[in-house]
């Protein structure tokens, strides 16, 4: 299925969860916060939250700033 991740369209398996998507992208789940379709998804649910065709996903983290 097609997902939009941080603005780019990507392919993902139909049984993908937030956690499996994070892992497939090589990201450290503990330093990423997640929105799906504009709604924040709490970390504790990342393993069970299934993704669906067309979902818009934002993966954010900390960067330097003032």
């Amino acid at each position, binding site marked *: 299925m097609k997902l939009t991740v941080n603005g780019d369209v990507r392919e993902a398996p139909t049984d993908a969860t937030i956690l499996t998507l994070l892992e497939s992208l090589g990201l450290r789940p503990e330093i990423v916060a997640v*929105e799906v379709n504009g709604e*924040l998804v*709490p970390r504790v649910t990342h393993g069970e939250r299934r993704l669906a065709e067309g979902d818009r996903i*934002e993966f954010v*983290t*900390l960067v330097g*700033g*003032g």
Partner: protein
Amino acid sequence: MLHMKNDYLADSLLQVGKHHFQSRLLVGTGKYKDFAEMRAALEMSGTDCVTVAIRRVDLKAPKGESIFDYIDRDKYTILPNTAFCFDAESALRTARLARELLGTDLCKLEVLGDTKTLLPDPVATLEATRILADEGFTVMVYTSDDPRQAVHLAEAGAAAIMPAGSPIGSGQGVLNPNAVRIIQELVDVPVIVDAGVGTASDVSLAMELGVDGVLLNSAIALAQQPMRMAAAMRDATSAGRNAFLAGRIPRKLYANASSPVDGVIGRAAEIAPVS
């Protein structure tokens, strides 16, 4: 609660909401050469509250180290910002993501008007302050030096008012000290000068006005020698704070001799100036 350095230098801690800080200098983590330099400069500055930004993970960049690995959370309180948000909704989303990421209720709220001035949008800032305060955030609000806006923000639930000394990154210092002083008189929450600091004297001047703290980033990170400037900012914060608490002498137009005017050799007592 008193933080006793010794009997003469006792001072209260900076308190924002339920958070206490040993240092009155808050330091940003942006624009350093690398994370190692950032970590060393933060240490040198004496700060215990550091700001960070929230951004999309760069999926194309090499994975590896994160700023997370360079900030010891036992030592520093992390203050996430909503920098470069130009509407209330983006700022709210960013604040909520930061809370999820860091497990903190702190938010340095910035809702900006345009990219050239980076001045805050007062209407959207007020709206976002109210919503975040209602959601339980400790909202530290970046604002202009407008005293009436500061009052509105405090009434909306801001935990700290953070007037810009001058535009972000401009290094112009505190352009309107009178407005900053009036803000302090009008609000009961801490006032922290945020943005515009160029050098140590800007920090001292702000602290001498009686503000509760100063937040800066570029002035250290972009200095020729960030480590030395971090030390200068640490000392300037302390110097300005002590000068404020000590109580300066009034300004006078004419001289007032420091040494005794009587007993000068070869000079008759009767012609000594009458004070």
